[in-house]
């Protein structure tokens, strides 16, 4: 299972973090700092996998953002690389050519999309359509709410 996923920028700013096991805040901060340092120091042509503590780290850079997953000993590295890619595709589809700013300003959306895709560290659905449908549905609900909200204000 995936233990956690991190998104951070070239400058070392953490943009998104999702932890699938209970971890103390202090440890989280330490692990994030340590991993960012390791990953940011690696050169472009190097391999996308590394051993870290008792975990395997799989990472990939998209533009200015690093997507970094920690998986367990017996997990499949290549498929994790494609988990990252599918997540990027989902973000891209939803935001329409996603950029770092989208994730900063709509962080809650990024979390919702990730939650629809991964749950408890396992993949929930690999179909792009299913995931986006779930998000769209909730957006529709949101729309309704907004309308009713404006209506309340209009009153």
């Amino acid at each position, binding site marked *: 299972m995936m233990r956690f996923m991190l998104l951070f920028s070239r400058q070392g700013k953490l943009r998104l973090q999702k932890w699938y096991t209970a971890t103390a805040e202090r440890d989280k901060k330490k692990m994030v700092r340590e991993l960012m340092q390791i990953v940011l120091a690696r050169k472009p042509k190097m391999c996308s996998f590394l051993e870290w503590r*008792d975990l395997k780290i799989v990472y990939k850079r998209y533009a200015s953002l690093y997507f970094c997953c920690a998986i367990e000993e017996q997990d499949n590295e290549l498929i994790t690389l494609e988990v990252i890619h599918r997540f990027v595709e989902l973000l891209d589809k939803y935001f329409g050519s996603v950029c770092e700013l989208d994730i900063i300003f709509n962080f809650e959306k990024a979390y919702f999309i990730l939650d629809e895709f991964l749950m408890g560290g396992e993949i929930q659905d690999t179909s792009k359509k299913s995931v986006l449908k779930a998000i769209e549905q909730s957006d529709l609900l949101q729309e309704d709410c907004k309308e009713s909200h404006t209506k309340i204000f209009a009153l």
Partner: protein
Amino acid sequence: MPAVSKGDGMRGLAVFISDIRNCKSKEAEIKRINKELANIRSKFKGDKALDGYSKKKYICKLLFIFLLGHDIDFGHMEAVNLLSSNKYTEKQIGYLFISVLVNSNSDLIRLINNGIKNDLSSRNPTFMNLALHCIANVGSREMAEAFASEVPRILVAGDTVDSVKQSAALCLLRLNRTSPDLVPMGEWTARVVHLLNDQHLGVVTAATSLITTLALKSPDDFKTSVSLAIARLSRIVTSASIDLQDYTYYFVAAPWLSVKLLRLLQCYPPPEDAALRSRLTECLETILNKAQEPPKSKKVQHSNAKNAVLFEAIALIIHHDSEPTLLVRACNQLGQFLQHRETNLRYLALESMCTLASSEFSHEAVKTHMETVINALKTERDVSVRQRAVDLLYAMCDRSNAKQIVAEMLSYLETADYSIREEIVLKVAILAEKYAVDYTWYVDTILNLIRIAGDYVSEEVWYRVIQIVINRDDVQGYAAKTVFEALQAPACHENLVKVGGYILGEFGNLIAGDSRSSPLVQFNLLHSKFHLCSVPTRALLLSAYIKFINLFPEIKATIQDVLRSDSQLRNADVELQQRAVEYLRLSCIASTDILATVLEEMPPFPERESSILAKLKRKKGRGNLPDIDEARKNVNVNGNGNSEPSDKIEATNKSSPPLVADLLPTNRPRPVSSSTFMFSPGSTVSSPSFTDLLNLNSTPSAGNTLLVDVFSDNSTFSATEVSEENFARFICKNNGVIYENQLLQIGLKSEYRQNLGRMYVFYGNKTSTQFLNFSTSVTSTDILRTQLNIHAKTVDPVIEGGAQVQQILNIECLSGFTDTPVLNVQFRYGGMMQNISLKLPVMLNKFFQPTEMSSQDFFQRWKQLGAPQQEVQKIFKSKHPMDAEVTKAKIIGFGVALLEGVDPNQENFVGAGVIHTKSIQVGCLLRLEPNVQAQMYRLTLRTSKDSVSQRLCDLLSEQF
């Protein structure tokens, strides 16, 4: 498709985020955040009830602040309130906040659980999904308690929609991981397995994850999943790439599900059913075949997805380890990847091949790729890939290629990254030892290791080379010559000085015939390094010098001069000083014969598992270290054409046992079985030596024991004879060695308080061999059993050679007693059962509490105890010189208070104490009158109980 701004109804949030982004400094950011926190706090506390939208907005801001890395200590309640909102968007933000910020011990958990419960029963799939996500995200015990029975019900209910089923499966998986005890197996388990047949691939994917985890824990309950998984897998791999529509990923059919199914199959052995088995083999073959087909897309996603499935299939093939053709095909496929232009694939191929190398079927096939792997070691630019190459070389090493692989690793070591040097050193040391036929090669290799990477050569490694040299006559001369030459280098590593010092000290004589390495030359060479070395190395060198005095009497004077110098005799380091003083003294007073005995060559080391191997295992963890042993022999014995004949293998195996596995667990190389002078640094400081097992002063020698046995009245010499020779010595003291023979030493430490006592019994194995079936028991006579309780803790049945184990006896005195409990010790040594019985020194006086009293009180009580049966008197001849101080010490040791100035006669000794038993306490007064002229004593005891008086008198009168 919604645009970016769609759904983002929170302008205030966007403004706040831009504000933060515009902050020029950390201080400005903190200031802005504090302002916002104050604002939100006042809104939450304000009189005006906030509408849902505002609540949502503020909660979202708090979340943002938290994710920036700041602490948030309020807002939880408002977030929980959002859960009960009817508006999806508010509920969603509430759940998100809780998932990220609420930890399991929160007191809000009950309120949260309430919200979740409502949503789970809402029958609204979107709400149910939110609730299930929240359970999976928080995953706390309280939640598991509340929902562990509800979630399985939702999962298998007929009317649950697919998306909820998926969430429920993964939610249950999370609960099972965090609180497995709370998730009961039940009738739902069978139905979960059938989800593998579900129409919806998303449901199958989620269910497969759940089933894999459950199957790992209780394989029997989920056995039926094997056939279903194979059927499903078969349908996927044979489908055309567009059949699965949205589950086809870059022309690869359902790669995620395939990987998961293959993973599930790895929880089980190969299926026994032939049809099922051949269907699975077909699947695996199809996957292997597809790897050879031209890619359907140039995109890396296509090849990644395809190869992810391939690697998982190979993992399953290796796991089954039963189909030779598949294993060899897998190996060839990985061989292709070794030269692939994708770094990722090279990395994974190296990693995967490592496990393949340990299979008997594919070991030879893996070996054919050796040149490629060696090349990878030299040319790969990424250290993590090179690390994998080292691992693989280690795994594929056997007798046929050991020399080449070790040479390549050594040459790589010169330029290797610092982070992996220690590991390479360990691997080289292990391989060199394991596959050494020619021990000169082994010695050369280790000395090279020290030369190239001295700092990374741990103690285990250099201890090991010494042990091997000591244990093998044929290599000693060569080793002496080689270290001598290596020491000639102007700058050599301290580890080399250690090895050199040790080996020359033992075997320098073997090369002393050559004038270029005459005794004086050897000594001067060693001593030229002395001042550059650390204290432990200097200590070792001093020991080498004293060994030299024995080996080369002609340079005795030179060495004595060195030992005598102020820098040695007055060295600030106590260990060095002590060695210099003792060695100098030893060399001056001991005759040649004694020196020769004390400084005799070290006896062979006992054979144990290599601690280098243990160290490597610790470093790497179990999974990463394939056992490089097994399998090989099978391959060779099976005769794969070019393999060695099996009898030769046998022969080489026989010749190597001393090396295959052994090393002391103790931290110094030294045999424990002999009285030979201990030639190791710090022996008086850190390791237990048998002359001082307990750090106690009394050490009766084995010879002494023998004499007493021979002259004792008892004429039978059975092994089970109860030994009591040391018993009397323990009347007035609590600690010491109670028993010792050639095999075993038994020491005691005891402490008493009122009627309770605790005795620590130390069993020291003096031999170099294990004691097996070691057991002890304490027996008492029937009478004694009613008077004294002894409870012995169990003791380990094996005592390693040279080791000491401790046993605790808890003792309770119930009433006065005269008998003595017996300690029986049994163990197997060298095939013989040994029985030893000895009287355990637990006697009545141990339960004394001393009583101080004035002269007046003493005589008043003395008179009160005037009845004839209460007094016992004994007049006896002194057995020891009559020394007042010794006598005083003995009386105090006996347990009573020594009362000064009570008796009008200053020569007499007077004592008082109370014996504590569980039932009664017995007061006791005693008086001892020495008569120096007659060398006689008169001992008088008065207690309230006649039997007690008699027993105490018997015990004490023995002491003078």
